[in-house]
């Protein structure tokens, strides 16, 4: 608590403002004429009365006594907690000093009054130190625990600690400084006299990068290292604000909100360790601080130093490891999405969603580089189901970027990722007004590449875009390559599918059906129309198909060709049709080999040649008849 000096104006019965001999009550009545005010005074609810003549407040006796008592109590407490109290004027000259002496110039209060701190004789005050201190004062900064060495009147070394704060009047004008002094000679000497092992242990503890503290049975922090003090001051995590002397368990009990569950778990674990129910307690927790997200691994171990039960609590910041794990998982997720995808659109959406969810970004869009027009066109997008985000994506549907224009265009041209942090005024790309309206003024854009060529860009927008670290940049490059390879593969597959469709179409145009046989030359697949007895063909050799008329010699010849794995062309055979006539068919085929080079069957095409064969037969019959007619006449 800071010392306060209320401007007490006790009613002066001898002053000219009070009627002589009329008493304090008469003076009050002169000042207060309103009935309400009088009633309030009579009921003891008033502390002071305004005197328009003097322009001052007149304290009533009870209030004055209470304030004087409070002031005396405060002074007593200050004297108990410190060794001295001082005040300086606006020129930093001491105007008041009580308690322990300051500096070797001290010869009673008169010794330092009127002097500045740097005019006193100290052993350790260099010109640079004083310059720094004067700058502090000029900035009206609070200073704490400045340590000065001086020799007292008995030639003994004294070490004084001085702290101070600026004073301002009601108009906020600087009035000077006030503060306290503490004689820390004994503490310093005790520290200096401590065993070397203690100092070594303390130095080692402070050198640890991991925040560490030691709790007593009640959960009070007995000691903590420098890293712990930094963490406690950083206002993040369960350790926030709990410094040495504070009760860690009580602080955890008071935590509300998202960290409540973690705090309960920590308290339970610490109590178990203190009670000896377990030697080690480890707990991993996530801290969603406003500035950044981080993860900690808390470890509580039992201290066996003496009879009193104690626990050592340490916090390891595992944010970097967790982020790396997250990104690795993201890379696997992306690989899985792409590997199992039949649909390019669904795969791209799944990838965008995975990236958004991992990085807590609001939405992502894939712009495809259209080779024909040379511009980037929106292909796919995904966003969190929030009105603002949906509006943002809807508005960006017709957006077209030329290479070099906008953030997406620049990424497409350079092939390098770019980002804009939230709230920054980055001139590299103009953000739309809508982006600012929706709070998604941060962006992260990276290219989708394959074999060194940019196929498109993935652009993410969000209100939570942070400066990317090396691991994130590595991850987006990997994701860009994966998606690029996927898109290239899909393009190749599409081209192959189109080629196959074209080939099938041509095959269908040039033949009536296609067929496949296994290694025993039995039909396994027949497509198209025109093959007689097609319903009974599967599982049969050509010879076994009902109604097929094939001489033994022809079949033997054909079989020998098949056995030799020769290709054959236009092998003709006849079929007895239901109308009693013969149908004629021609098949061509080639052997199929597996990767090991073994023949696995045949495939080929078939054509209905009945019309041609019948025409040939009819022609031959007409020739024969003609020949019969000619030959008798010639006889």
């Amino acid at each position, binding site marked *: 608590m800071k010392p*306060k000096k*209320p*401007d*007490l*104006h006790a009613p002066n019965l001898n002053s000219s403002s009070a009627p002589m001999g009329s008493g304090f009550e008469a003076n009050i009545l002169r*000042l*207060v004429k*309103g009935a*309400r*005010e009088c009633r*309030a*005074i009579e*009921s*003891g*609810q*008033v*502390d*002071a*009365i*305004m005197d*328009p003549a003097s*322009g*001052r*407040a007149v*304290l009533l006796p*009870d*209030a*004055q006594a*209470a*304030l004087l008592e*409070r002031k005396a109590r405060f002074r007593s407490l200050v004297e108990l907690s410190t060794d001295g109290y001082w005040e300086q004027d606006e020129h930093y000259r001491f105007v008041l000093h009580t308690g322990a002496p300051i500096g070797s110039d001290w010869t009673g209060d008169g010794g330092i009054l009127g002097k500045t701190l740097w005019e006193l004789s100290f052993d350790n005050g260099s010109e640079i130190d004083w310059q720094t201190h004067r700058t502090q004062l000029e900035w009206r900064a609070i200073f704490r625990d400045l340590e000065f060495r001086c020799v007292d009147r008995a030639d003994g070394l004294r070490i004084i600690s001085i702290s101070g704060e600026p004073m301002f009047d*009601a108009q906020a004008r600087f009035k000077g400084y006030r503060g306290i002094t503490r004689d820390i000679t004994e503490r310093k000497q005790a520290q200096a006299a401590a065993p070397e092992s203690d100092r070594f242990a303390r130095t080692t503890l402070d050198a640890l990068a991991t925040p560490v503290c030691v709790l007593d049975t009640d959960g009070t922090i007995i000691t903590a290292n420098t890293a712990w003090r930094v963490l406690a001051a950083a206002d993040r995590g369960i350790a926030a604000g709990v410094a040495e002397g504070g009760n860690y368990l009580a602080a955890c009990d008071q935590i509300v909100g998202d960290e409540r569950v973690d705090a309960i778990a920590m308290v339970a674990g610490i109590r178990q360790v203190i009670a000896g129910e377990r030697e080690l307690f480890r707990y991993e927790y996530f801290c969603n601080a406003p500035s950044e997200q981080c993860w900690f691994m808390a470890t509580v171990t039992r201290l066996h130093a003496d009879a009193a039960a104690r626990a050592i609590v340490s916090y390891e910041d595992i944010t970097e490891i967790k982020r790396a794990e997250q990104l690795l998982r993201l890379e696997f997720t992306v690989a899985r999405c792409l590997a199992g995808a039949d649909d390019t659109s669904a795969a791209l959406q799944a990838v965008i969603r995975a990236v958004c969810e991992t990085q807590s970004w609001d939405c992502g869009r894939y712009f495809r580089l259209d080779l024909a027009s040379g511009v980037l066109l929106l292909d796919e997008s995904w966003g969190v189901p929030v009105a603002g985000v949906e509006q943002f994506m809807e508005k960006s549907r017709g957006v077209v970027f030329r290479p070099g224009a906008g953030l997406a265009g620049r990424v497409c041209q350079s092939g390098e990722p770019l980002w804009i942090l939230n709230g920054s005024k980055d001139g590299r790309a103009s953000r739309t007004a809508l982006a600012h309206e929706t709070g998604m003024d941060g962006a992260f854009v990276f290219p989708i590449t394959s074999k060194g060529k940019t196929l498109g860009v993935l652009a993410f927008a969000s209100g939570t875009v942070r400066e990317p670290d090396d691991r994130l940049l590595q991850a987006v490059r990997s994701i860009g390559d994966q998606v690029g390879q996927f898109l290239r593969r899909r393009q190749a597959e599409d081209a192959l599918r189109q080629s196959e469709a074209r080939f099938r179409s041509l095959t269908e145009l040039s033949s009536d059906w296609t067929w496949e046989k296994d290694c025993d030359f039995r039909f396994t697949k027949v497509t198209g129309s025109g093959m007689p007895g097609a319903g009974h063909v599967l599982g049969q050799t050509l010879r076994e198909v009902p109604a097929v008329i094939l001489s033994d010699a022809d079949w033997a010849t054909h079989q020998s060709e098949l056995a030799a794995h020769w290709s054959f062309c236009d092998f003709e055979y006849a079929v007895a049709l239901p109308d009693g006539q013969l149908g004629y068919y021609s098949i061509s085929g080639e052997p199929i080999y597996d990767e090991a080079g073994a023949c696995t069957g045949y495939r080929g095409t078939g054509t209905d040649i009945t019309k041609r064969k019948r025409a040939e037969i009819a022609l031959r019959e007409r020739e024969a008849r003609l020949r019969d007619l000619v030959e008798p006449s010639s006889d």
Partner: protein
Amino acid sequence: MRRKQTKRSASGRPAIPPVTTTVVMRLYIANNAPNSVRAVANLAAICKEHLQDKFKLEVIDVLENPLRALAEGILVTPSLAKLSPSPAAKIIGNLSDKSSVLHALGIT
């Protein structure tokens, strides 16, 4: 004949309608004098219970700013001046009479 029923709070007392406009007040005190300290505590409790965040309060220490108190027509402290919404009102004393404070603030 049906009677209009007064809405009551859980405590059985008539429920006070929620305040929708911001109440602007000025409290004049004499440093840490007993009635002033009590007035601050009483007003803080009333604000928390009835006004939540719908109030603006300026606390003026007449020992530090006597002229301001005089200029604003304050004769004794503690005094609470309600500036808006209209009508303006002034309450004298340590604000221990809660009902009169609520009445003056226009909450009842």
